[in-house]
C-alpha cells in the first residue's frame, strides 16, 4: 500500500528563521563608546589577527600592502632628509630616534611584505598585536615628529597614508564598510582635538612665545593632515576597490552569459541529440532488456559529458572522475567489491592530470568489462605525492599486454605513457592492471594544499 503525501512546505516554519539575528554589518562605528573603542582596538590589532582560514590574499589586499610599504619608505625618507639637513647639537640623539624608527617601520613592513608574496602566517594574539603595533606606531610618529622639527605636516602625509591603508586592510578583514567622513566628524568633536585646540587657546591667552605657538600650530596642522590623509586613503582605495569589483562583476556576468549560452547549446545539441539517437535505436530494439541497456548507455554517455564539464570547470576531485565509471560498472551488473575511500579520492588534480586519469580509468575498466569481468576492484595509491597509481583488478582471466592490438585504448595508453607506467599481473581469477600517472607541478601543489 502506498500513501503519497504531497503536502505543501509549511512556510519553512522551523527551519529557516530560527536563529535570532539582527541587522548585518552597517557602515561605520557603533554608536556607543565602548563599541567604538572595540573597533579602534580591532584596527590597532591589525588585519592578521582577524584572518582565518588559509585563503590567498586578494589583489586589492596586495595593492593596499604595496601602498603601505611605499608609505613606510616615504616616512623614513622624510626622516633621513630632515636628519641630513639638521645641524643641531642633538644630532646623536636624533640619529638614535631615526634608528628606532627604522626598527618600527621594519616590524610594520613584515605583514604587507608577506601578503605581497602571497604567504600567510599564524594569527598572533590580540593583546600582543595591539601592544607591539601601538609601540611601533608611537615610535614612528614620535621619532618623525622629533626629527623633522618644524615641518611636521610633511610627516603627516606618509603617516596618514600608512594608517589609512593599514586600517582599510583590517576593516576588510572584519567586514566593516569604511566610513571615513563619519570618522572625520567624530575626530572634530573628539577630546584629542578639543584638547589640542584648548591648549593653543590657552597659549594665546597666556601670551606664550612665538616659537611655542608655531610648534603648537604645527602639531595641530599635522594632526589634521594625518587624519585627512588617512581618510582620503581609506575612501579613495575603497572606492577604487569597489569600482574594480564592479568591473570584475560585469566581466564575470559576461562570461556567465557566454557560459549560459554554451550550456543551452550543449543541452540542445549534445543532450538532445544523444536522446534522439537513443530514441531511434529504441525503435529498432526488440525487447525490454535491450531498451534498458540502451537507456543505461545513454545515461553513461551523459555522465561522461557531465564529467567533461567538471574537468573543464577547474580542478576536480578524484572521486568526481571515478564516479561515472563506477556507476557504469554497477549498471552493467558487475560486482564492485572494493573501491578507494575518501582518504584517497579527496585529492584535487589539475585539468591535464584529470584528463589523463579519466582516460586511464576509462581504458582499464572498459578493458575488464569487455573481457567479461563479473567482479571488479578499483584501487588507488599515492606515491610520494609525485604519482598516482590506479589498479583495476578483474576476474576475466589473464592476457598479454604486449599482445594488445594496436589502436585499442590500452595500447594507445601504453604508447603515450611508456611501457614502464602500465603493468599487469595475474591474480587468482584474472588480471590486475596498474597505471602509474605522473602528477603535474600544479597537481602536486594541490596535494600539498590539501595536506
Amino acid at each position, binding site marked *: 500500500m*502506498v500513501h503519497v*503525501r504531497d503536502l505543501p512546505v509549511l512556510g519553512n516554519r522551523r527551519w529557516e528563521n530560527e536563529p535570532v539575528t539582527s541587522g548585518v554589518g552597517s557602515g561605520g562605528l557603533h554608536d556607543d563608546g565602548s563599541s567604538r573603542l572595540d573597533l579602534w582596538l580591532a584596527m590597532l590589532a591589525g588585519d592578521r589577527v582577524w584572518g582565518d582560514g588559509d585563503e590567498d590574499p586578494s589583489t586589492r589586499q596586495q595593492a593596499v600592502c604595496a601602498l603601505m610599504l611605499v608609505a613606510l619608505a616615504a616616512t623614513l625618507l622624510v626622516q633621513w632628509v630632515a636628519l641630513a639637513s639638521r645641524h643641531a647639537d642633538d644630532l646623536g640623539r636624533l640619529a638614535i630616534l631615526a634608528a628606532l624608527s627604522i626598527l618600527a617601520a621594519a616590524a610594520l613592513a613584515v605583514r604587507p611584505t608577506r601578503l605581497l608574496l602571497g604567504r600567510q602566517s599564524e594569527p598572533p594574539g590580540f593583546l600582543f598585536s595591539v601592544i607591539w603595533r601601538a609601540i611601533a606606531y608611537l615610535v614612528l610618529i614620535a621619532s618623525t615628529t622629533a626629527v623633522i622639527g618644524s615641518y611636521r605636516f610633511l610627516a603627516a602625509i606618509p603617516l596618514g597614508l600608512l594608517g589609512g591603508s593599514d586600517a582599510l586592510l583590517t576593516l576588510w578583514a572584519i567586514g566593516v564598510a569604511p566610513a571615513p567622513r563619519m570618522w572625520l566628524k567624530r575626530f572634530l568633536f573628539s577630546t584629542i582635538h578639543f584638547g589640542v585646540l584648548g591648549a593653543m587657546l590657552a597659549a594665546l591667552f597666556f601670551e606664550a612665545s612665538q616659537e611655542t605657538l608655531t610648534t603648537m600650530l604645527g602639531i595641530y596642522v599635522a594632526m589634521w593632515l594625518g587624519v585627512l590623509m588617512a581618510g582620503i586613503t581609506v575612501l579613495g582605495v575603497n572606492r577604487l576597490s569597489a569600482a574594480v569589483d564592479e568591473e570584475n562583476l560585469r566581466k564575470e556576468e559576461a562570461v556567465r552569459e557566454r557560459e549560459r549560452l554554451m550550456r543551452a547549446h550543449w543541452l540542445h545539441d549534445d543532450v538532445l541529440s544523444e536522446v534522439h539517437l537513443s530514441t531511434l535505436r529504441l525503435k529498432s530494439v526488440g525487447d525490454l532488456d535491450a531498451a534498458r541497456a540502451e537507456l543505461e548507455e545513454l545515461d553513461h554517455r551523459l555522465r561522461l559529458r557531465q564529467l567533461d564539464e567538471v574537468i573543464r570547470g577547474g580542478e576536480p576531485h578524484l572521486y568526481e572522475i571515478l564516479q561515472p565509471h563506477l556507476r557504469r*560498472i*554497477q549498471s552493467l551488473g558487475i560486482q564492485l567489491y572494493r573501491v578507494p575511500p575518501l582518504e584517497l579520492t579527496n585529492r584535487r588534480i589539475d585539468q591535464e592530470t584529470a584528463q589523463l586519469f579519466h582516460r586511464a580509468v576509462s581504458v582499464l575498466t572498459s578493458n575488464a568489462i569487455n573481457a567479461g569481468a563479473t567482479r571488479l576492484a578499483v584501487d588507488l595509491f599515492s606515491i610520494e605525492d609525485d604519482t598516482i597509481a590506479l589498479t583495476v583488478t578483474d576476474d576475466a582471466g589473464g592476457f598479454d599486454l604486449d599482445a594488445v592490438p594496436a589502436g585499442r585504448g590500452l595500447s594507445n595508453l601504453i604508447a603515450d605513457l611508456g611501457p614502464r607506467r602500465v603493468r599487469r599481473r595475474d591474480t587468482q581469477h584474472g588480471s590486475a592492471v596498474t597505471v602509474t600517472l605522473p602528477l603535474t607541478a600544479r597537481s602536486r601543489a594541490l596535494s600539498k594544499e590539501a595536506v
Partner: protein
Amino acid sequence: MTRILLVDDAAAMAELFSKEVATRFAAEVDVCVAVADVELMLSRDPYDLALVDLSFPQEHANGIDAMAEIHRATPATCLAIMTQGDAWVSEILRDAWDLLPIATIISKTAPLDYQLEMIEGVLEGRVVEPDPAVQTLLPSRRNPERTPARFSELIQHNGHAKVWNVLMDRNFEATYKNVSDSTGLKLNTVKNYRSQLLPELRVHRLDDPSLREMQEFAWRCRSFLRPYVQASLEGR
C-alpha cells in the same frame, strides 16, 4: 506489515519508487516530500525503515534534519540514505555517516534491482555496505569521537551559544562585524571564541575553518547543535 518512510523532494520519482518498494516487500510505504512534514508522519505508527534524501534545496533544510528527527522520535527505525552521491552533497553525507546510525547509503542512480536488494538486506538486519559509487565519498571508517553528544563541547558557555545561534542561519553574512553586531559581543571576543573552538572543531573534520566554513557546518549539523545552543541561551 513492514512500514517504510521515504523522504524525498522529487515527488514523481519518489512515488514511482515507493510503489516498487511496496510491491517488492509487501510493505506500507509513506512518501514525504518535505522535511517540515516529517514530524506529521512520525505521529503515526513507527516505521521499520526510513529512506531519506539529503538535499532539499527548496526548503532550506537537509536530510540530516529529517533523519535526526526520525531517530529522536523512534530510535528503532532503521535509517538509510538515498542520494545522488555527488560532490554537492559530499560534506553533508560525511556528517550524516559520522553522526547517525545509518544502516546503508543507496545511490539514486544505481540499478533498481540493486537498490531493492540493499533495502532487503537492511530490512533483514544484514550489514549492507554503502553503494560502491558513494563509498568514494566516505572515509574508510567512521570517526568514533564524533557523536551527537560531542556537540555539547562546542558550546562551552553562553557566548559560544550566541555565536552558533547566528551562524546556524544560512542567510546570515558571516563576518566578525556582523557576528559582533548580532550577538552584542565585542569583536575581539568573537575572535577569541572562534579560537577556543578550533581544537573541538577538528573532531568534526574542520581544520582552522573560517567563519563562513563554521556557518556551513552549523547549518548542516544544526539538528545536533541547536538543543545545546537553546539550552545555553535559556540558561538551562
